[in-house]
């Protein structure tokens, strides 16, 4: 178990009572997100789909690395890790 900070982007803060970050003790990214959901019900469905996979319009980083390059939700956490939930931002003229 590692003390981990989860950074919450502004569009999801209505689910964390306005908190910009949440601290949990977790061994993997998946565990950290499960603990986040336990603390703030409803937030996980904005990050994971019904099969428990990362949604296409959300990126998750540990430190500066996308978890896709770290083993996904099984990515391990070191003491003091920072998880960032990063909304995918896109659009266009047409």
């Amino acid at each position, binding site marked *: 178990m590692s003390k981990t900070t989860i*950074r919450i*982007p*502004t*569009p*999801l*803060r*209505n689910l964390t009572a306005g908190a*910009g970050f949440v601290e949990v003790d977790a061994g993997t990214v998946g565990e950290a997100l499960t603990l986040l959901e336990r603390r703030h019900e409803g937030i996980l469905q904005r990050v994971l789909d019904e099969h428990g996979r990362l949604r296409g*319009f959300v*990126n998750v*980083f540990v430190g*500066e690395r*996308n978890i896709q390059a770290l083993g996904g939700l099984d990515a391990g956490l070191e003491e003091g890790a920072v998880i*960032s939930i*990063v*909304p*995918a*931002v*896109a*659009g*266009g*003229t*047409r």
Partner: protein
Amino acid sequence: MSTTAQQRVLRWRAPDVRGLEEAARKGYPLEVCGLLIGRAGDAGFEIAGFTRAANLDAERPHDRYTLNPEDFLRADGEARAAGLDVVGIWHTHPDHPARPSRTDLDAAWEGYVYVIAAVTADGVHDITAWELNGPEFTAVAIEEEDR
């Protein structure tokens, strides 16, 4: 754009507006994008600065953008260190009005303010701001301050 009692407001500094216009002009004819840093509140958005971000859409860079998430991560970290947040996104509509498209709507997040700059070869001729409310965008008034 007129301000009504209910309409939320985006306030930003003149130097930031000029800087964004310059980035839009330099990026033309491609779409360019970035993030708005500041604070969000009940009345709207106070913008303290903006960032440039890479457009990862290699197939349609003239009319689509996908903001590099690593640029978002960096901007978010710097904003938090300054006691601020990423509160919105800006992007350009080259040779197109500054109104949100269906593509903009499909990708929008409730809680962010979306600034659109209409740009041509002559420069930026319109800037608008929007936020998602349920299934549609509503306009956000823009106030430019000489601070």
